[in-house]
């Protein structure tokens, strides 16, 4: 899949049949209704072997199923989720635009009222699973000039006239994962295509991403684990200077650092999932989990390549693919810089009470 930049159709079929593309779909629509922690573990295990599979599953669930479940009306859910739960239909999340990356509020796609219809014009980029989409959620500005509060979300079927999926991107990694542009050319939607109230789009995608972060953290964790396992296996069997290189302190310390970072990341990811599942606030923790796990992922893949030496650079060893794949985890669904902004915001809000009580004493 990596060599040909194509998601293997047989694998896709297997994912559908095992309902991996609909893990978060509620049981009443035929879905497996996994809790967040179980879902995270699945994404982690898939990513341990293949980042492209991990992200395909993560996006389909966190960016597809979840927003419908969170924000859809009963009628919208009834329209979309049975197909998701029983047939593996994929929903995609059209948020990012060329001018709206980290600044997602800088959306330029417009939604203009025309009689009882909404007319959508614009394009989205870097959309995962674009070519597999049965349903599309897209954000558009319905009230210009008031910033984020003027953005709304819409739900449409792939067959809607005016909608098209554009070119597939050629990427550094995750080559098996479909990343495409989406085009909306005078797409006319009925009033009931809006997801949630008018102007609710920004808040929706913020919440969607807060939760999605856990899945990307899990993906990075899996890639880190996979890279580490390759490294430790190699270090035990590769002999130089008359002994396995695992005998050398420099190599041992690399393994120790990898394993420690992975363990710490795992605690953060699983804890964030647990908080969400138990109905507690989790947004700061999910940002921390994604931030930490993605940087751990890069560190582990990088260190694993170093342990493998020249062999680490060859396509025949998985580790260079993990290295290319995991880099995206620091960028997609909120860059590490955005995660730090989110975390800092929470910290400053949470610490406001602290400072007051200290000055009182």
């Amino acid at each position: 899949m990596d060599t040909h930049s194509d998601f293997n159709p047989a694998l896709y079929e297997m994912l559908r049949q095992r309902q991996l593309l609909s893990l978060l779909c509620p049981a009443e629509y035929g879905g497996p209704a996994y809790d967040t922690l179980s879902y995270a573990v699945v994404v982690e295990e898939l990513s341990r072997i293949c980042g492209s599979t991990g992200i395909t599953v993560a996006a389909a669930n966190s960016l597809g199923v979840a927003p419908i479940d969170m924000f859809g009306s009963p009628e919208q859910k009834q329209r979309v989720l049975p197909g998701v739960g029983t047939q593996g239909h994929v929903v995609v999340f059209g948020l990012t635009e060329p001018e709206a990356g980290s600044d997602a509020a800088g959306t330029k796609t417009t939604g203009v009222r025309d009689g009882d219809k909404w007319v959508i014009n614009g394009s989205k980029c870097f959309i995962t699973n674009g070519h597999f989409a049965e349903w599309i959620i897209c954000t558009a500005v319905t009230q210009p000039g008031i910033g984020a509060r003027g953005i709304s979300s819409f739900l449409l079927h792939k067959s809607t006239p005016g909608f098209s999926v554009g070119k597939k991107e050629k990427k550094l990694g995750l080559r098996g994962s479909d990343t495409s542009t989406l085009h909306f050319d005078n797409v006319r939607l009925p009033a009931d295509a809006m997801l949630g109230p008018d102007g609710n789009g920004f808040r929706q995608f913020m919440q969607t991403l807060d939760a999605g972060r856990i899945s990307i953290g899990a993906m990075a964790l899996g890639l880190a684990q996979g890279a580490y396992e390759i490294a430790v296996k190699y270090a035990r069997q590769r002999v130089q200077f008359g002994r396995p290189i695992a005998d050398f302190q420099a190599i041992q310390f690399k393994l120790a650092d990898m394993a420690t970072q992975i363990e710490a990341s795992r605690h953060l990811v699983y804890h964030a999932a647990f908080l969400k599942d138990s109905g507690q606030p989790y947004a700061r923790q999910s940002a921390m989990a994604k931030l930490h796990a993605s940087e751990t992922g890069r560190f582990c893949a990088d260190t694993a390549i170093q342990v493998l030496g020249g062999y680490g650079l060859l396509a025949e060893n998985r580790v260079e693919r993990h290295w290319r794949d995991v880099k995206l985890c620091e960028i997609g669904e909120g860059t590490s810089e955005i995660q730090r902004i989110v975390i800092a915001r929470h910290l400053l809000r949470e610490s406001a009470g602290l400072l007051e009580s200290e000055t009182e004493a």
Partner: protein
Amino acid sequence: MFDDSLTDEQRVLRDAAREFCQRRVVPRAEQFDHDGAIPDDVFSEMAQLGYFGLRVPESYGGMDCDPIAYTLVIEEFARACAGLAITISVQNALVCGAIKNHGTEDQKKAWLPQLVDGALSAYALTEPGAGTDAGSLRASARRSGNEYILNGEKCFVTNASLAKFIVVFASTDLDAGSKGISAFVVASDTAGIGIGKPERKLGLRASDTRSISFCDARVPAGSRLGEEGAGYKIALSQLAHGRLGVAAQALGIGEAAFAAARQYARERKQFGRPIAEFQAIAFKLADMRIKLDASRLLLDRAVRLQAADKPFAREAAEAKVFASESANWVANEALQIHGGYGYMVEYPVERYFRDARVTTIYEGTSEAQRIVISRAILSQ
């Protein structure tokens, strides 16, 4: 290697390389990466301009560049196409260097002019079982009358399928360990030499990397470079030179990544302003600059020692470790600054990221360099 410390001649050579690269390499670097090859027309033009004999004395037709000018040229090529830079570096530092420093007058006359003219070369040292532990190599060279018979397998050989000449390290006395290794310069069309298929690599895809097998390959006794048993010393001494080339290559990759990141940060607007105005991004650029300048200083120190014929092995190792690790750090941050676009193949930054990776591994891993450095400082 900072502009204000260069002679006019050094500046001229650097600028000529830069101009050539801008014109003939930069527009095609992405294609070279995609194709996994550099076309012949680039090599022939480079040969004509003297890039394959930069460090060869004029008496053999070379450019006789001083080490500083040479290092600057490698850096310029690396900014444009790191795969092309290593092709020149192997040719000049490892092969021409080995012949120049250890060959007889007849050998220099036989081989150097051809290399200068554009005959490419390769340096076959590494084996599947002998990487960092190069001294444990198992390729053998058995003396038979006026010939040696070579047997064994080499891997990760740069320029393998392009080379007319191959420097091969093989043991003439397998029981003597590294002290039994000898060096040979063999013609690639010698019977019994097999060139493997191209390796599919993470980076430096424009550079040709393959295995070479020797199956009862008979080479004349005159192919031997230096004395029997002197091969390992030759390998190590040339690697100290090669180290500087890799450091320069890493620096070039880092500078290219930095330039791309700075431009993108100035042009990309989010939240109503260029992202360069955000402290997080500005500080990344600052840290990149610090690491690149420090790399340059370490490289400058090592190259000037080499130019003065003083010992420079430890300094070269320091420069290689620092420049290569910095280049990786810089390329990663440069990609991060580009955000999603950095992950797309249409922007060059992901290529810089991939190309930087090998520099902490080949011609002596960072770990091997740290062994060299720590041994040197502990023996003082």
